[in-house]
């Protein structure tokens, strides 16, 4: 069977049910693609071939026995290496956890397992999900499948590149300030940052707790709807997951956009945004208008302050969350000899964390320290309120917002590595939705003259993921 690895979830499921191919063949096709292509991309940090083939065989047996199979069963998935997978190394791509094997599954992994998960491997990320390019990984850089000299975006770069290069059918990532949407846009795939609390984060290493979300990558809006249906919902192990009903997300697909009010936030098309990117996104919006949507320009005046808010609040929360990595309970024992307990912490953390993590922990420590707390942390939390008010106001007038994901397409490897602030600017258009906890779906919108993918995002009010999928599915027909 030719190129089974290129199928979408929907196509794979149909083929499996109609017995056109087995899960074993489908899984083998993905593993073969990993062997053939991943040497040049580095999307995976570990490949779980044995477990994947065993899972596929078990699926095939159950299907042959006439069992009703759930939506994602038997379909190969790549998991960002920050989700705990029982018995399988979970490194967060940090020297600190290079050999860490978690004893239990994250909630979402349990849910996928109950749904017949076939995991082909764990995917690369910026250390502890801190970065926008997957260059800050102790396993090396993930290359963009469209141009190996460019980044795949980050921090979930491995999960996005794995799909774009057809090495698995779907994948999971995390998005704190843009870590799903940015790589999805750079690699030309679909990726959804859900409403804060929509998907349980239990068992996923925390980065910034008031911002962190978990979400899917896929090759179509229908795939995103399928995955979301399995992973979304209340979890007793994560008290930030509210008891909000999980709708049938596929029911939102292909409903058209007649009468849907779309806002174009002018700040997302302004200074710093490349003309080509803005044009590709506006062309897509023009298509939606022709399909019956009502388009108007809106304003989110606080947009330009979002990066500053994020790079105060996130490091503050990160520095607290990473306190647990002390080389005693978790993390590597230092190579150097320690004089006393405090010296042991210094050495374990000095050796175990990479540069970007050290920078962020120290920014967090600084902004939370006495004397600076009010000027930085408290101020940022207040401006965050004003960003939320921007969204609340604008969603009184429009149903969704459509905007570029990133001001520019994938940049060259190494280009921004020594200039943290320039790197942070890549998140300028994804952070505001994270600040407000609203969902945003990244969709492929077109290509640059140089052939690089350009993505757009569809932002909706909290718990209205369905609206993002509705608009996205119309654009998909283009």
């Amino acid at each position: 069977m030719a190129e089974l690895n290129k199928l979408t979830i929907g196509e794979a499921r149909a083929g499996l049910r109609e017995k056109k191919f087995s899960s074993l063949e489908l899984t083998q096709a993905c593993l073969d693609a990993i062997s053939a292509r991943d040497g040049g991309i580095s999307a995976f940090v570990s490949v779980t071939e044995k477990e994947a083939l065993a899972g596929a065989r078990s699926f095939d047996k159950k299907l042959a026995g006439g069992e009703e199979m759930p939506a994602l069963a038997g379909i190969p998935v790549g998991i960002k290496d920050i989700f705990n997978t029982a018995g399988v190394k979970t490194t967060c791509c940090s020297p600190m956890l290079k050999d860490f094997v978690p004893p239990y599954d994250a909630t979402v992994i349990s849910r996928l397992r109950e749904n017949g998960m076939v995991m082909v491997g764990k995917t690369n990320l910026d250390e502890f999900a801190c970065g926008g390019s997957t260059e800050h990984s102790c396993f090396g850089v993930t290359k963009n499948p469209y141009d190996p000299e460019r980044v795949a975006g980050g921090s979930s770069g491995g999960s996005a590149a794995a799909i774009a290069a057809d090495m698995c059918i779907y994948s999971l990532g995390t998005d704190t300030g843009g870590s799903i949407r940015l790589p999805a846009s750079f690699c030309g795939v679909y990726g959804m940052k859900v409403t804060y609390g929509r998907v349980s984060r239990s068992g996923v290493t925390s980065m910034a707790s008031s911002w962190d979300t978990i979400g899917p990558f896929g090759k179509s809006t229908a795939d995103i709807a399928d995955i979301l249906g399995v992973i979304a919902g209340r979890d007793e192990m994560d008290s930030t997951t509210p008891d909000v009903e999980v709708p049938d997300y596929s029911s939102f697909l292909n409903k058209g956009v007649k009468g849907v009010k779309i806002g174009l936030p002018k700040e997302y098309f302004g200074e710093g945004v490349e003309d080509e990117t803005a044009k590709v996104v506006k062309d897509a919006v023009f298509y939606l208008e022709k399909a019956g949507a009502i388009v108007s320009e809106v304003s989110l005046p606080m947009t330009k302050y979002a990066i500053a808010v994020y790079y105060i609040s996130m490091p503050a929360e990160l520095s607290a969350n990473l306190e647990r990595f002390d080389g005693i309970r978790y993390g590597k024992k230092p190579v150097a000899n320690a004089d006393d307990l405090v010296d042991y912490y210094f050495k374990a953390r000095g050796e175990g964390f990479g540069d970007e993590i050290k920078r962020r922990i120290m920014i967090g420590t600084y902004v939370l320290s006495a004397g600076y707390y009010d000027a930085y942390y408290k101020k940022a939390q207040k401006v965050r309120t004003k960003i939320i008010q921007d969204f609340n106001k604008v969603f009184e007038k429009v149903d969704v917002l459509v905007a570029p994901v990133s001001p520019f397409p994938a940049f060259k490897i190494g280009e921004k590595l020594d200039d943290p602030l320039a790197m942070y600017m890549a998140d300028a258009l994804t952070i505001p939705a994270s600040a407000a906890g609203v969902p945003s779906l990244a969709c492929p919108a077109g290509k640059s003259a140089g052939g690089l993918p350009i993505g757009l995002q569809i932002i909706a009010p909290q718990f209205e993921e369905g609206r993002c999928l509705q608009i996205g599915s119309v654009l998909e027909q283009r």
Partner: protein
Amino acid sequence: MLSEKEMRHVAKLARIELTDVEVGKFSGQLSGVLDYMDILKEVDTEGVEETNQVTGLKTVLGKDRVVSGRCKREELLKCSELPVDSDQIRVLPAIK
């Protein structure tokens, strides 16, 4: 501007050992980032409440019962690279 002395102090608070080269590099980079944060001074936040969480949840309580958890004590202790003795992690051999 973050001086090298301040940089060393912050690293000490964060329990991260830095080399002299790192102190120089990070104090420059972090100064740039912190200077950028001054942009927030432009925003009038008089009377604005702080945001600590975004979905309006209030004091989420669990049921008052023992949950068996996802793994046993021994399994969690095995997460440590240090020896386990009498159900506790032994730090002493790691310190000279």
